[in-house]
């Protein structure tokens, strides 16, 4: 995807993720120098820009677990020509989705009221500050909420996989991941 005369604009974010995928992204090491020749960053933990503007590529780490995640994800979809799900949580819901067969109310009670070590805390309560985004009853992979163009599985995907994928994409090839760099773990 060559865009003549300017660098590609890339936005990244972490929804219900652990930032591990972003760390792995930084693991491309010296390729970062090549990358910044080709791209510039819009909203991203790397720039601290708060809202996503028009971009060529949006990269999403993490699944969707609360209302804010839904808004951010829709903002990315709206502004990015190409949207990429990066990592197991964005692709499958991942570890946070392991709560999906449980009742979210009971989960909160367990975590803040009844589990060992918390049950005796005085005045312990489920946080309900209006600033806090509302939890969804289930955690979803991002393709269940918006259209997603590409998926890079892995927990996290290796720097090598991310680099291979991005260079394919930027060069205008169909990005391809196969054994041994395609991994789900």
């Amino acid at each position, binding site marked *: 995807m060559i865009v003549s005369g300017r660098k590609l604009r890339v936005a990244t974010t972490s929804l219900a993720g652990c930032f591990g995928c972003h760390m792995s992204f930084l693991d491309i090491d010296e390729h970062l120098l090549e990358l910044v020749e080709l791209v510039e960053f819009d909203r991203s933990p790397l720039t601290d820009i708060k809202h996503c503007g028009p971009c060529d590529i949006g990269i999403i780490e993490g699944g969707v677990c609360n209302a804010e995640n839904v808004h951010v994800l829709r903002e990315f979809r709206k502004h990015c020509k190409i949207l990429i799900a990066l990592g197991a949580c964005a692709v*499958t*819901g991942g570890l946070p*989705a392991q709560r999906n067969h449980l009742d979210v109310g009971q989960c909160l009670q367990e975590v803040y009221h009844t589990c060992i070590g918390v049950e005796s805390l005085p005045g312990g309560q489920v946080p309900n500050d209006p600033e806090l985004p509302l939890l969804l009853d289930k955690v979803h992979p991002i*393709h269940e909420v918006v259209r997603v163009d590409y998926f890079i599985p892995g*927990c996290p995907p290796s720097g090598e996989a991310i680099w291979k994928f991005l260079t394919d994409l930027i060069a205008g090839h169909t990005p391809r991941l196969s054994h041994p760099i*395609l991994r*789900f773990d």
Partner: protein
Amino acid sequence: MSDTKKFLLDGKPVVFQDGQTILEAARQAGHYIPHLCWHPDFPAHGSCKLCIVKVGGRHVSSCAMPAKEGMEVESNTPEMNGERRALLQMLFVEGNHFCPSCEKSGNCQLQALAYDLEMLSAHFNHFYPNRPVDASHPDVLLDFNRCIFCELCVRASRDIDGKNIFALTDRGIHKHLVVNAESGRLADTDFAASDRAANICPVGVILHKRQGFARPIGERDYDAKPISVVAMEEVEK
């Protein structure tokens, strides 16, 4: 002229003996056809359909279909591999497959096939079924979340161990694996870690306790070579 019988697999002649299935003959001739519920020690089961091939315009399960003289079989084509990928995606969303926290990762045939067929996402919406684990047995854990209903454990326990410990019950999305004990718990059976049934699950349901990641990720069955290569090396052994 010799009286050897042949069929064509992706345009290449494959010799077979009467009574062999397409999959058996292909394997013997060194050609890999993906499979999950099929196992060389058991009769064909025909449930996973990963071994799907096209013969004369029709889709058939190569693990169950007898080879016939002159057949033209399509297997390693974009169309067949696309269908296999869709079948894998359905298997992934029907259960709870969180590979990063699964002890079987790297040794799992479902995952290895997904790698081999370059399945990058599950595509469909996940069901996230509720399937509690059974940790009652001292030596073996059952994590039903990952069961693909191949019945290899059912068959091994019944036909080889002579114990009949596992069964499938219910239908459709409610189908699940049960333990044949009044309590439903594995601890209340005579199941042993040395049973064939304890060592046959292609995915991460029947797990030996205290093994975990003793063999680290990176040194597992399908880490160095893809399943299409590993499976054919097993034939040579």
